[in-house]
């Protein structure tokens, strides 16, 4: 009996997928705060510097936010703290290198890499996560497995590809001028892809049958089961989507940033988690907006402090948000019965 109660409590305590539209007040509040801050920065540092920092914040945020969308799905739907997610991004980028080396043209190599990473994510479900779930593994065992999987993925990539710096060879220096402001062309692409991915995932979750089932599963797994939802199917779909999105963001990251090695996933990982939690676990809009909020706050902070404090600013923001807005920007507190 205690078993069930505990799982039920787990689910009750986790904030889950929710509709962005229905949760307007908190995002609106956040938007207001951001606008006030931006105005203050414009007054203090002049419009060009403040707005350029804002543009940079959007770019930095899009890298984190896009990566966090896949993570938030697994965290929200499967309640799994997937510490290997960053390494799935790496796998996606290196699959691209592999397929390009095998002779595929780059765009096709990228697509194949996304499919391959999705297949890999599904394979981890079959080989690792499903058996652990059936054995009723606790949260620490799952966490440990995720760390182990991350090590295996990252160092398998490194074993075959080496740890030297790689590039996908895209032109990363061209930029678009908007008045006195500059935005890198590929950075703009990253931002567009990030927002598109967010909207697509959001719409799928909101309106499609599988999306509704995923939300139901995330909300209350036992109830989803007895409502006739094929839960294993939902789990598989979630992994496929997560792997695909991870590869998409890994490839975009590798392309837009232009230079990477197998460590980039693990260095990005804590930011991904921060964006996920900030946005409200399980919400794709939240993941991207969470990423943007971190990006903005970090880039804005460079107007005030030396840039080397950037990461610390991100973590401080995370702690403050957890204390004062624990459900995240788009998260919804679940009432306990």
């Amino acid at each position: 009996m205690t078993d069930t109660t505990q799982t039920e409590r787990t689910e009750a305590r986790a904030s889950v997928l929710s509709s962005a539209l229905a949760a307007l007040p908190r995002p609106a509040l956040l938007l207001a705060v951001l606008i006030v801050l931006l105005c203050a920065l414009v007054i203090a540092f002049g419009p060009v510097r403040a707005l350029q920092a804002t543009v940079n914040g959007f770019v930095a945020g899009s890298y984190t936010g896009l990566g966090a969308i896949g993570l938030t799905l697994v965290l929200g739907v499967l309640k799994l703290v997937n510490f290997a997610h960053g390494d799935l991004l790496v796998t996606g980028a290196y699959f691209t290198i592999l397929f390009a080396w095998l002779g595929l043209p780059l765009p096709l190599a990228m697509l194949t890499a996304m499919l391959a990473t999705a297949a890999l994510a599904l394979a981890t479900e079959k080989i690792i996560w499903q058996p652990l779930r059936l054995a009723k593994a606790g949260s620490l065992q799952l966490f440990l497995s995720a760390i182990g999987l991350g090590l295996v993925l990252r160092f398998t990539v490194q074993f075959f590809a080496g740890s030297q710096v790689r590039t996908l060879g895209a032109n990363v220096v061209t930029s678009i001028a908007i008045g006195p402001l500059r935005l890198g062309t590929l950075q703009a692409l990253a931002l567009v892809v990030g927002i598109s991915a967010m909207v697509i995932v959001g719409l799928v979750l909101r309106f499609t049958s599988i999306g509704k089932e995923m939300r139901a599963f995330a909300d209350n797994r036992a109830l989803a089961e007895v409502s006739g939802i094929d839960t294993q199917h939902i789990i598989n779909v979630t992994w496929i989507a997560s792997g695909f999105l991870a590869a998409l963001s890994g490839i975009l990251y590798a392309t837009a940033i232009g230079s990477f090695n197998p460590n980039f996933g693990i260095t990005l990982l804590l930011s991904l988690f921060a964006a996920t939690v900030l946005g409200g676990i399980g919400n794709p809009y939240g993941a991207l907006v969470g990423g943007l909020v971190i990006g903005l706050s970090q880039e804005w902070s460079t107007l005030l402090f030396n840039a080397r404090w950037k990461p610390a600013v991100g973590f401080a923001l995370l702690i403050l948000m957890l204390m004062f807005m624990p459900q995240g920007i788009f998260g919804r507190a679940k009432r306990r019965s």
Partner: protein
Amino acid sequence: MSCKIGRLAAWAAVSALAIVASAQGAGAEPLDLKIGALLESTGPLSELGPPAEKAINLSATVANKAAKDAGVEAKVTIVSADSQGDPQAALSATRTLVDKGASCIMGPSTTPESISVLNGITMQRKITLWPLASSTRLRTVKDDGTIYRPVPADDLQSKALVKAIENHVGKGKAVAIIFRNEPYGDALSKSFTTDWQAEGGTISSTISFDPQQESFDSEAGQAVDTNPDAYVVIDYPETYAKLGAALVRTGKFDAKKVFVADALSFAKVPDNIPPEALEGAYGVAGGSPTGTDAFKAFNKLWDEAGGVANASYTANSFDAAILCFLSAVEAGSTEPGAIRDKIRSVTKDGAPQFTIETLADAVKTAATGKEIDYVGVSGAFRFKDNGDPSSSLYDVFQYQGGKQVKIEQVNVK
């Protein structure tokens, strides 16, 4: 508890037996030299691992060929271990190298690793350590003459940078410093600031960035916004690929105003760095290497060997291993202390000079016990008492068409 200690002891005993079984008569002919390579194969600096590994392996190939050509019975084997870029892991890694019989240890790349390895192991065993770290802090520790740095320390290099900027931009100008927030960038930026201001120059901005961030556009913007006469960039290629792209994207950046420190000195600009970020940029490299035949020969060797592209400090790693080898030949021993005591005899000012191309002759001469002067790929080595290179000659180079071209030499004190 006792059972755990017992287990440990059992392990230890097994390992000890293995070592005894494989041990060979020390100092006996022919020379069987093991050179340890402490590589950052994993961890935050893992991009440094593969090029360093290749450089040291190349040195063994070159040394073995030279020994054969010289008819000297000496063999070099490289043993390597992963320092993970972490002082604690570097300790374990070094112990495995020592267990494998390493007489010298090449690397590691950072000051914390170097000091912890020195204090923990190498100093007591008189094993020479050849760190690629340039912090002056390394000088402050007691090393019993075991540290030899194949790279110039910050204080010399910062003076070379000052001279190069004065020659190409002018005295008393405004300079923006951009550095990677690590011991290397931090220390060199501080010495440069002091030296530049002492010469009447101004620093328009000092920007340090966290290497683990994904974009550096704000940092780049801050650097160009002050509209400096020159930029000093202290960075590794991995992050400069991102930072340089961001600098170019500002639209207000002129790579010809850039002066890079030695970690961004390559024969050929690596693929991952956008050409616009370095084309026309100046840089300094210690010991007068660029443009020498040895430098060209090394780069040819590198390209022929295939594998990873050339990167920073590979020539320094290569030279360090060759120096260890020549010292062992000179000492006629692989005993670490004996090698340590001969290093100055193979880098003797005024003795007959040899380079990578005449290495066989160098081996032949050294085997007779005569002093020699090995002029490395990265330049001549003049070690001071503290093991730092004292060479006052620096090449000022410029990247032209993606290649390093020597412009002039400067002399610093």
